């Protein structure tokens, strides 16, 4: 009998959850295949060219890297056991990001789509609200704003 193996290629490496290098959604989805997983969901949070009516030229993300890595690893572990995931991957970018780049990617895989979608939503919401990562928006008028679009008062994920 072949033992069941859980397959979390990225989740096992907690140093890999925070990346100063550009994120690669195609590479991540190519890792995300599992014989027990009939549904794979990939979420990419991307840099928009505007926020609250103001034109954004670029963003910078900063993280408390060691803490953020550990917290993302714990969130993936919690989601994996709650939704019986076969695949749970999350990476958040740091540094300067241009419009259209991925700031955060979450990949979930499970037997059926309901769990993969629910777990993916849970993971991205937790990352946004709890993990020590901060966004600074650089605006077209030359000013900057820390923590724009921070919805920390909202905990149910409805924004």
């Amino acid at each position, binding site marked *: 009998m072949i033992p069941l193996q859980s397959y979390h290629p990225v989740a096992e490496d907690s140093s890999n959850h925070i990346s100063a290098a550009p994120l690669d959604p195609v590479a991540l989805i190519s890792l995300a295949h599992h014989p027990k997983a009939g549904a794979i969901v990939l979420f990419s949070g991307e840099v928009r060219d505007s926020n609250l009516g103001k034109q954004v030229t670029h963003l910078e993300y900063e993280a408390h890297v060691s*803490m953020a890595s550990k917290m993302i690893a714990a969130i993936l572990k919690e989601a994996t056991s709650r939704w019986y995931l076969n695949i749970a991957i999350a990476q*958040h970018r740091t540094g300067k990001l241009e419009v259209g780049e991925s700031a955060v990617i979450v990949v979930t895989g499970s037997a059926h789509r309901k769990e993969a979608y629910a777990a993916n939503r849970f993971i991205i919401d937790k990352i*946004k609200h709890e993990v020590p990562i901060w966004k600074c928006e650089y605006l077209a008028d030359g000013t900057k704003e820390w923590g724009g679009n921070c919805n920390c008062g909202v905990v149910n994920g409805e924004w």
Partner: protein
Amino acid sequence: MKVQVFAVLKDHFDKEFEVHANISNAQELKNFLIQSRPETKNILNNCRFAVDDEFVEMNFKLKIDDTIAIIPPSSGG
């Protein structure tokens, strides 16, 4: 003790600095920082403090060789 600040707090403090005052817990450290930069009061009141990658309560006893990270509300994603 060493203090690390992040995000908006870097507009008010060095990213990393030493505090030599007689401080015994996280609340006292916060009070000390507010006293030295009163304009950061509202920000610091919304921050959490962490030692060794774990959030701590404000009554957490600080040691002289601790590094305290001051964590503003998250705005990732």
